[in-house]
């Protein structure tokens, strides 16, 4: 038999001015299951709370309804009071008669009637409430960072310096990401490698960081605080423990003409190679697709010359399993293939190149040691055309979004080109200049005002070669003139795209991604580094096109979220979660498909002999966020949401029937 106590608050005059509180209490006293009903001036004051506590003890109350302000205001207060008096806090509810009643209605009769109804609703709810217990989850204090670009490096270092352990997984043979390829960086023009390499070295030597390069995520299971991750360490064919990085093998390898990925095809590498001289680890890997030992079964030169016997052609992929409590995804981006635009002749004319290739030409460590030379004949180009928005903002053949970084790096390119080729002329075709950021617009203006870059407002329609010149046909919409430039070189600012494997990775992690496969944050403004899967965070260009300052800021944010999570030993969360009745579940998987959090699992029911009998849905408590979608759509009424189950809600609706 329910014994519910109703406590009606006056809130001084705030409620009592329009609501007849005494009458509310009197009426409530007569509701079925109500054992006690009083009104009082300030329920949240100490005496008010004591009134409740005493009543719980003395009247042996099985539930409490406080008719007062919004639960957003004082629900924790009254639940705490109930708990102190020995009542399960989830048996205490609030009826909102202030924000929803007294403050919004003037007529005393109307307000009092509504207050009575709101109390009746909550009394009915409490009559059907069950005690609930907060869920506690232990936390494994070790973080996984996926991707070793500047985002992953920064996040790993911040977490490690915060005193927690980190595992950094990078799929390439070296960490560094795109930033390692850049020459100098806007808006300050500092040398990219000079600021990046010290951090790469720090990662390698940090006692709290375990580095897995040439490795990929195979499988992720578990939930916040308790993930279990399988990592595939790809066969490197070089024993990292034995190799000293002397480089003899690379010197002697006969396969010398392989286009270097790091140089964007402008330079060559060997089959056993290090992507770039400052690579971390500074040890090579054998590219089995090109190595003669693997393609033809003969060579073995590297093994012969290696002084430490580090070469191992028999090396196999290895799977390691790690337990972690949080994950930071920092897998970065990829640059669009300009082949898509036949009218620009990329791939056909060697002197039509991408922005990333131009970075390599500008880089002191690049294929031309930092001199700007044409790939076709090595001549210094005197007229260079830069075309912005190639593939970006293009609904027809590219992507509709703005890639955000190319306006800035194009201005940088125009500037650096002029610094290197004093008698050269840069032309930039742009649609809009997007330079929002500290010192960004000033930077672009400098390219125009001091380094004489000629900016034309319009797109380019066609590029073709004639007598060794690249004829660029564009337009300047501001003057209404068509423009032809007879250029020596053309640089295309191609769109920033998500990684090719972003979607499968997101699915492994059960995090969401947008239609372009960029990973999605939980809220664009208020939770920009969290995903909607608890315990998984985002950093860098895997979330959206981003420059280095934004990437580093987000990486720091992700790291501090991880450190915050690791600051306690256990997680506690509200017990509003779904539960499946395994007897009635018919395994239709509607809930499984609908749950926005992937909280529903498929569970096998076994008989006594351990044979599988049937499947049912099962809710993972740690993952369920309590939205109740599953409850509403289950065709067999087999899922109930604790705290908002069908019985409770029908009771609440029933409370409104005309007597």
């Amino acid at each position: 038999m329910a014994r519910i106590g109703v406590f009606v608050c006056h809130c001084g005059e705030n409620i009592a001015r329009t609501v007849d509180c005494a009458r509310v209490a009197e009426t409530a006293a007569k509701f079925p299951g109500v054992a006690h009903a009083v009104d009082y001036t300030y329920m949240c004051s100490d005496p008010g709370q004591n009134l409740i506590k005493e009543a719980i003890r003395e009247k042996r109350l099985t539930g409490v309804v406080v008719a007062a302000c919004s639960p957003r205001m004082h629900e924790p207060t009254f639940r705490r009071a109930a708990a102190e008096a020995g009542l399960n806090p989830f048996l205490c509810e609030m009826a909102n008669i202030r924000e929803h009643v007294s403050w919004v209605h003037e007529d005393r009769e109307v307000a009092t009637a509504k207050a009575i109804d709101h109390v009746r609703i909550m009394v009915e709810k409490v009559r059907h409430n069950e005690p609930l217990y907060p869920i506690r989850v232990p936390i494994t204090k070790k973080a996984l960072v996926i991707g070793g670009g500047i985002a992953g490096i920064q996040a790993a270092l911040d977490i490690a310096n915060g005193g927690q352990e980190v595992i950094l997984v990078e799929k390439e043979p070296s960490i560094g990401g795109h930033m390692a390829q850049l020459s100098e960086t806007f808006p300050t023009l500092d040398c990219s490698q000079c600021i990046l390499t010290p951090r790469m070295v720090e990662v390698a030597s940090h006692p709290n960081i375990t580095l897995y390069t040439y490795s990929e995520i195979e499988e992720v299971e578990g939930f916040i605080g308790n993930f279990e991750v399988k990592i595939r360490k790809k066969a490197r064919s070089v024993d990292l423990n034995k190799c000293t990085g002397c480089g003899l093998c690379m010197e002697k390898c006969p396969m010398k003409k392989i286009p270097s990925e790091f140089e964007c095809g402008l330079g060559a590498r060997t089959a056993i190679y290090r992507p770039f001289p400052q690579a971390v680890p500074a040890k090579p890997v054998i590219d089995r697709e090109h190595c003669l030992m693997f393609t033809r079964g003969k060579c073995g030169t590297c093994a012969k010359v290696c002084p430490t016997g580090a070469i191992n052609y028999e090396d196999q992929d290895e799977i390691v399993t790690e337990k972690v409590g949080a994950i930071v995804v920092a897998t970065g981006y990829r640059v669009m293939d300009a082949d898509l635009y036949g009218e620009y002749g990329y791939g056909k004319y060697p002197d039509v190149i991408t922005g990333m290739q131009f970075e390599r030409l500008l880089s002191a460590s690049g294929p031309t040691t930092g001199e700007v030379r044409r790939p076709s004949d090595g001549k210094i180009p005197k007229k260079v055309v830069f075309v912005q928005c190639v593939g970006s903002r293009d609904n027809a053949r590219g992507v509709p979004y703005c890639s955000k970084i190319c306006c800035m790096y194009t201005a940088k390119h125009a500037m650096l080109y002029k610094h290197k080729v004093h008698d050269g002329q840069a032309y930039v075709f742009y649609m809009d200049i997007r330079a929002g950021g500290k010192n960004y617009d000033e930077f672009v203006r400098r390219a125009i005002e001091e380094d004489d870059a000629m900016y034309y407002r319009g797109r380019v329609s066609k590029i073709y070669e004639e007598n060794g010149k690249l004829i660029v046909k564009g337009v300047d919409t501001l003057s209404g003139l068509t423009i032809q430039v007879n250029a020596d070189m053309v640089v295309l600012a191609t769109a920033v795209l998500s990684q090719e494997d972003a979607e499968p990775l997101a699915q492994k992690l059960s995090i969401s991604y947008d239609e372009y496969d960029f990973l999605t944050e939980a809220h664009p403004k208020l939770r920009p580094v969290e995903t909607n899967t608890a315990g998984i965070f985002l950093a860098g260009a895997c979330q959206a096109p981003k420059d280095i300052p934004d990437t580093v800021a987000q990486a720091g944010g992700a790291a501090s979220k991880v450190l915050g999570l690791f600051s306690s030993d256990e997680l506690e969360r509200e017990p509003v979660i779904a539960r499946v009745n395994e007897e009635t579940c018919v395994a239709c998987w509607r809930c499984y498909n609908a749950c926005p959090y992937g909280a529903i699992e498929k569970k096998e029911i076994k008989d006594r002999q351990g044979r599988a009998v049937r499947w049912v849905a099962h809710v993972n408590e740690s993952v369920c966020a309590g939205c109740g979608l599953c409850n509403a759509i289950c065709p067999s009424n087999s899922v109930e949401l604790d705290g908002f189950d069908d019985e409770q809600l029908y009771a609440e609706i029933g409370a409104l029937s005309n007597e």
Partner: protein
Amino acid sequence: METDFEPKIIAFVCNWCTYAGADLAGTSRLKYAGNVRVIKVPCTGRIDFMFLVRAFEQGADAVLVSGCHPGDCHYNEGNYYARRRWTIFRKLLHFLGIEEDRLHFAWVSAAEGQKWADLVNEVTARVRELGPFTGYRQLMEKSRLTQSAEVQPLERK
């Protein structure tokens, strides 16, 4: 139309957006019609069609459902599901002989106190025009006469 008819409207609102929006109307001391009774759910995705039927059965003259704006759902996509189902809800109600204007869907965010107040006023005015709802009860009466107990309204608690 009857002038002294005071409609009874049941509102299902989500905890994160509309409930908070209604709170804001309160803290801003906006005044609006007193005909709505609020039932809080975690998300509009939690709403079962039978809740609406039950509300009408309990004498509601109209039902109002309101949650977060699309894309702002606290549960990411909960209200997308809800939205998709709303169209079906409408059709089902129509099938049961309930006028479409007795079911209102809206988006009210936590910042839209004024919108909540306006919404309540609009819906109340509209239902006042429509008059009291009797259709569903008549329908049930009819089915009770002609058919077995199975079609009777869900048993009351």
